[in-house]
C-alpha cells in the first residue's frame, strides 16, 4: 500500500495506482479527456497526451499528468494550485483553438467530453487562436464517419482498434501540428481491413468518429405511400434504449420500443429475435452435423459482421470454420422479402426493411453484395439504437410514458433463446439448448448454461449435451478472438463450438449503443437485463417458437433444406490482410 497526501488529505492506495485513482478514492475528480477506463474489461487507456489532468507534485520540476503518474509513498499532490488550474485551462484553450466551433450542429452535441470539459472548467473565451486543421471528411463507407477536423489526438480510438480489437487500422499519422489519427497512408476506411465494429466510435470523446446516419432515409421511407415499411429490432436494443430517455440502465423496454416504432409509422414491427431463433435452427443443424461427422470443428458462430470481416482479412485460411448461417439481421431480411412479401402480396422492391441495431457493422453488412437479390437488398436501411432515440426525440415521442405493446406477427414471435443473442455467450447458450433437446429427443428443463455467461473476454466451458462432452469457448472483443484463433492454428485446442462477438461484452456494448463513457457498470446492468428478459419468456428454446415451426412447415421445409440454404446461408471471401 502507498500513502500519499492529496490536497492535504492523507490517502492510502494500492501499489500501481495513479494519482488519478488516488484522488478518486477521496472524491476528487481530476478533469480528464484522453483517459479512458472500462473496469469490466481491465482496460485503461492512459496515453498522457491531452495534459488536461496535470497536477502539482511537490519536489517535481514540472506538472504531472495525474492519469499516468504512479502514486508514490510520501508524495504530496495539489490538484488545484493556480499553476495547475492555469495549465489545465491553457490545454483546453489550445485544444479548442484547433477544434471547429460548430457544437450546435455536431453529431456529438450533448455527448461530447470536450464540450463538458469547457463547461466544467468554465472557459468562456479563447486566448490562443490561429490556424485550424483542415481534413477531408471520410464518408466513403457505410458505417463510420471520420471527421479529423474534430480529432483531439487522445488516441483512445487507437487503443480500441489496436489493443482491444487488434484490428490495427488506426495509428498516429503525420508530425507536429499535422499529426492526426488515421489508417496508414490516410486511406479511407473502406479500403482498409477495418471491421466497422465501431469500438473506435464508442471510444471517441468528441465528434471525430461517429456513425453514418440513415435517419433521413428512414423518414423518407415512412413518408412514402408506395412502400410497405417493416422494422426489426435487435436483442440488445431493448435493454439500452431507455438510457437515452433517462431510464435506469438495465431497464427492459421491449414493449415501449414496439409502441414507439408503431407511433413513428412503421407498418409492421417485427423482432430480430425471431430471426435469431431461425439462426439457431440452421446453425445447430450444421453444428450437430459437423460433430457427428467429426469434421470442420470447431464451428464458429457467424452472427457478427465485424467478426466476419475480421476473419476474412486476418484469418482467411480458417474460412471453412465459421457456420455458413447468415446473421439474424440478414435472415430476417431474406425471409421478409420472400416468405413475408409473398404472404402480404407485396413485391420485394416495394417492401422496405429497416433494422434497429446496437451495431455499426450491421450497416456495412446490409450493403454486402451477397445480401441482395436482383439488386434488391434484403435489408434496406440500418440505424443504430442511438439513431432511433434521436428519431423518437425528433418526433416528440415521450418514450418513458409509452404504453407497452406486442410485436406483430408472423416475424415478431421469439423465444428467450433469441433474446440472449444480445449478450456475449448468448448465441452459444441458445444453440446448446436446441442441440440438447434434438440430440436427446426430449424437452429438457435444465437449460440455463450459466457457465457461458458473463462479460469476460474469453470463457471456456465443457457442457454435457446428450452425453457428449461439448467443449465450448466464448470470446468477445476481437483481440480475444485472435487469441483463440491463434490457439486453433497452433493446434492447441479441441473445441467443438466457439461463439465470437466483435465487441467486448457482445452486442450490448455495440458501436451503436448509447454511450457509456467510462461507466462499465452500465454494461453489467444491460447484461442482467438481457437474461431477465430471457427468464421472463414463456418459451426459451428456439425450436419451440411456433412461428418458426410454421415457417419451416409452410416454406422452408426443414433446417438445412435446399431452400433454407438458398435463403439463409452465405459464403465468405478472403480479403487483403493490410
Amino acid at each position, binding site marked *: 500500500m502507498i500513502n500519499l497526501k492529496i490536497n492535504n488529505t492523507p490517502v492510502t492506495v494500492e501499489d500501481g495506482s495513479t494519482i488519478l485513482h488516488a484522488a478518486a478514492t477521496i472524491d476528487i475528480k481530476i478533469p480528464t479527456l484522453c483517459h479512458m477506463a472500462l473496469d469490466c474489461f481491465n482496460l485503461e487507456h*492512459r496515453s*498522457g*497526451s491531452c*495534459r488536461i489532468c496535470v497536477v502539482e507534485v511537490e519536489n517535481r520540476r514540472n506538472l504531472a499528468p495525474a492519469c499516468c503518474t504512479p502514486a508514490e509513498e510520501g508524495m504530496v499532490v495539489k490538484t488545484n494550485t493556480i499553476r495547475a488550474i492555469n495549465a489545465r485551462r491553457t490545454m483546453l484553450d489550445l485544444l479548442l483553438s484547433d477544434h471547429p466551433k460548430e457544437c450546435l450542429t455536431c453529431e456529438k452535441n450533448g455527448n461530447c467530453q470536450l464540450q463538458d470539459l469547457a463547461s466544467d472548467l468554465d472557459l468562456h473565451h479563447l486566448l*490562443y487562436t490561429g490556424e485550424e486543421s483542415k481534413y477531408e471528411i471520410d464518408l466513403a463507407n457505410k458505417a463510420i464517419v471520420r471527421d479529423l477536423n474534430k480529432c483531439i489526438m487522445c488516441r483512445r480510438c487507437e487503443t480500441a482498434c489496436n489493443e482491444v480489437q487488434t484490428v490495427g487500422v488506426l495509428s498516429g499519422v503525420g508530425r507536429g501540428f*499535422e499529426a492526426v489519427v488515421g489508417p496508414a497512408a490516410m486511406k479511407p476506411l473502406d479500403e482498409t481491413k477495418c471491421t466497422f465494429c465501431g469500438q473506435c466510435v464508442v471510444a471517441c470523446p468528441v465528434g471525430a468518429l461517429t456513425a453514418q446516419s440513415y435517419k433521413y432515409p428512414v423518414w423518407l421511407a415512412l413518408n412514402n405511400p408506395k412502400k410497405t415499411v417493416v422494422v426489426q429490432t435487435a436483442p440488445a436494443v431493448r435493454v439500452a434504449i431507455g438510457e437515452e430517455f433517462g431510464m435506469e440502465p438495465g431497464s427492459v423496454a421491449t414493449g415501449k420500443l414496439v409502441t414507439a416504432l408503431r407511433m413513428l409509422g412503421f407498418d409492421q414491427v417485427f423482432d430480430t429475435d425471431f430471426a435469431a431463433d431461425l439462426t439457431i435452427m440452421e446453425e445447430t443443424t450444421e453444428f450437430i452435423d459437423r460433430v457427428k461427422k467429426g469434421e470442420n470443428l470447431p464451428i464458429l458462430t457467424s452472427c457478427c459482421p465485424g467478426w466476419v470481416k475480421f476473419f476474412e482479412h486476418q484469418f482467411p485460411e480458417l474460412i471453412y470454420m465459421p457456420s455458413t448461417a447468415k446473421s439474424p439481421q440478414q435472415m430476417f431480411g431474406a425471409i421478409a422479402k420472400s416468405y413475408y412479401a409473398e404472404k402480404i402480396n407485396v413485391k420485394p422492391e416495394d417492401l422496405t426493411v429497416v433494422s434497429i441495431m446496437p451495431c455499426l457493422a450491421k450497416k456495412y453488412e446490409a450493403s454486402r453484395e451477397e445480401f441482395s437479390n436482383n439488386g434488391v437488398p434484403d435489408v434496406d436501411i440500418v440505424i443504430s439504437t442511438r439513431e432511433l432515440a434521436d428519431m423518437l426525440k425528433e418526433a416528440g415521442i415521450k418514450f418513458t410514458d409509452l404504453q407497452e405493446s406486442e410485436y406483430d406477427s408472423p416475424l415478431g414471435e421469439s423465444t428467450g433463446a433469441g433474446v440472449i443473442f444480445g449478450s456475449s455467450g448468448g448465441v452459444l447458450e441458445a444453440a446448446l439448448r436446441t442441440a440438447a433437446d434434438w440430440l436427446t429427443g426430449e424437452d429438457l428443463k435444465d437449460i440455463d448454461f450459466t457457465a457461458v455467461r458473463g462479460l469476460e473476454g474469453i470463457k471456456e466451458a465443457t457442457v454435457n449435451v446428450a452425453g457428449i462432452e461439448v467443449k465450448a469457448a466464448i470470446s468477445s472483443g476481437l483481440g480475444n478472438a485472435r487469441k483463440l484463433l491463434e490457439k486453433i492454428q497452433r493446434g492447441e485446442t479441441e473445441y467443438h463450438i466457439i461463439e465470437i462477438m466483435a465487441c467486448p461484452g457482445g452486442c450490448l456494448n455495440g458501436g451503436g449503443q448509447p454511450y457509456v463513457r467510462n461507466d462499465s457498470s452500465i454494461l453489467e446492468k444491460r447484461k442482467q437485463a438481457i437474461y431477465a428478459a430471457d427468464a421472463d419468456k414463456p418459451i426459451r428454446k428456439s425450436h419451440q417458437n411456433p412461428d418458426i415451426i410454421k415457417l419451416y412447415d409452410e416454406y422452408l421445409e426443414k433446417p438445412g433444406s435446399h431452400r433454407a440454404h438458398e435463403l439463409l446461408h452465405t459464403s465468405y471471401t478472403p480479403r487483403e490482410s493490410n
Partner: protein
Amino acid sequence: MIDSIDKLNQLAASLNGRSAADICVLVSMGTCGIAAGTTPVLDALKSEVAAKGLEKTFNIIETGCMGLCHSEPSIEVIETKTGKSMVYGNVKPEDAEHIVARKAAKPIAGVDTVEKTWYYPEDEAASDKIQARIVLKNSGRINPEKINEYIANSGYEALGKVLTGMSSQEVIDEIIASGLRGRGGGGFPTGRKWSFAAAQDSEEKYMICNADEGDPGAFMDRAVLEGDPHSVLEAMTIAGFAIGAKHGVIYIRAEYPLAIKRLQIAIEQAEELGLLGKNILGSGFDFKIELKYGAGAFVCGEETALIHSIEGMRGEPTFKPPFPAVSGLWKKPTIVNNVETYANIPAIIRNGADWFKKIGTENSPGTKVFALAGKVDKVGLVEVPMGTTLKDIIFGLGNGICDGKEFKAVQTGGPSGGCLKADKLETKIDYDSLIALGSMMGSGGMIVMDEDDCMVNIAKFFLEFTLDESCGKCTPCRIGNKRLHEMLTDICNGKADHVTLRKLKDLSHTIKDTALCGLGQTSPNPILSTMANFENEYLAHVEDKKCDAGVCTNLISYEINDKCVGCTICARNCPVDCISGERKEIHRIDQEKCIKCGICFHACKFHAIDRN
C-alpha cells in the same frame, strides 16, 4: 581469433609503430571532407606517390573527420621518425605534387597550414592548447576501417581489462566514480543509469546506442562513428557486461550512410577477431550488436520514442515511468546511451575514474565535443574540457566572428537550447552553468550569431524546427508550439502588440511545464532566452515595428538617398526590376514591387541606399 587477453596484448604489441614508411599522410575522409572534395586529393596523392615510385616512403591513411570544417579538404603529414607533424587545409589535387615532393612536415608555399591551437592532438605540451581529445582521440588519426589500427591505439584494451579482471559491479562503480554524465543532452549520470538496469532481474536486457543525431548543425556523433567506430562497439560491449545484456542495438539515422558502412565493417572485423559475438576473449561473455536505421525523426532521439521506433511502432515518446532501465525494448530492461557517452567509456576504464575526474569541472568531469557553426570565422568540430569558456571556444578556436562583424549571441543545446549574449562569454561551460543561464548543453551544437541576425527571427527559426519535428502527441507541443510560432510570425510581421509578448511568454512557460517529453519541455527555450537577453529587439518589433538586423522583411524598406550618382549598379542587380532612373541621375525604388532582398543595399558602393 583472439580468444584470450594474452593474444590481444600480443597483437597490440606486434602492431607497435604505425608503419615503416618515413612519412604518413592522413587524409580526412569523413562525410564532410569527402563532400568538400577530399577524394580527388586522395587520388592525386596516391597517383603522385605511385608516379614517383615512393610507395615505401609514403603511407597514405584514410581517416575519419579531423574536425577542420573550415579547412577541408585537410590532410596531415607526419614524419615517422621525429613525430613532427603539420596539417594542411583547403588542399587541392594539384597540391599533391608539392606535398609529395616536400617529404616533410613543413610549410609549403601556396598550401594553407592549420594553426596549432586548432589541431595537434599529440602536441601535449602546446601551452595555448584549448582542445583535449578523449572522444575524438582516434578520429582523424586512424583508419576506421582497419581494426588493427584501433587495437594499436589501445583499442579493446579496456574490454580486455573488464572481461578478465573486473566484476559487473566494479565496472559500474568505476563509471559512477568517474562522474561521467550522458552526453546526449540530459546529463544524467551514466553509471547510475547502468546500475538501474543491472539491478533488474531479467534474462533479456538491451544496450542501445542512440546515434540518431538530429540537432540542426550537429555532427559530433557522426564524426565519432565515421572516425572511430570501434570505440563505440567496445564501450557497448563493456556496458552490456556491466548490466547483464547480451544484445546491443545501434539506432542510427539512415542519412548517415558512411557511418553505417564503417560500423558494419567494424562489427564484421570485431566478430572475426572474436572481440564481439560468442565467448569474447575466452571469457564466456557473449555480446552481439545490430544496426537499426532511423528515418530521420528528431523526436526519435528521445529514448522511449527511439525504442518504439526500433520495435517498428510510430516513433513517439511515452510517459516515464516505467523507465527503459526497467521496461524498455520489448519490455525488457534497456539502457540507451548516446554515441559520445559511449566513446568516453574505454578511456575511463583504461585510465581510471580518477584520471577522468581531473579533466573538466567537479560536477561535469571530462570533455565535451561541440560542433562550432554559424557566423564564426573557423567552423569545425572541437573537443574541449568541461569548464572551458565560451570565449575560448568562439574566439580562441573559432577565431571570432567572420567578416569583422560584431558577436551578438551564441546558441547552445540545439533547437531546445538558449541564446546567450556577449556578457556570458566568460562562462565556464558545463551542464549546470548552462542550465543556470537558461540554456543547456544539449548534444553539443554551438551556433554563433552576429549583428546581422534578428533574435526574434532566430527564435522563430528554432521553433519552426521543433514544430516540424514534434511527434504531435501531446497538446502543448502539438498546438502550443504552433501558436507560439504564429505569435512569433506576427511579431516579425509587425502585427503584434504587448499582449502578444505577454501571451508568448506565458504559453512558453506553460508548455515547458506540461509537455510530455524533453522535446516539448525545452522547445520554448529559444523564445524565453531571447526574450530575456534581447528584450529590446522584441520591443523594437512590437512598438516601433522595426527590425534593426534587417531580417524581418515586412518591417524594413529600402530607399535611395541623394548620395546616388546614377551608376545603375543597383538597378542592374535588382532581381525584380523595381529600381528605375536614368544614368547619372538619382534612382528610385518602387516600394510596391520591392521584395526587400537587400541585394541593392549590398551592391551600392556609395552608401546611397538606406535601410529603414
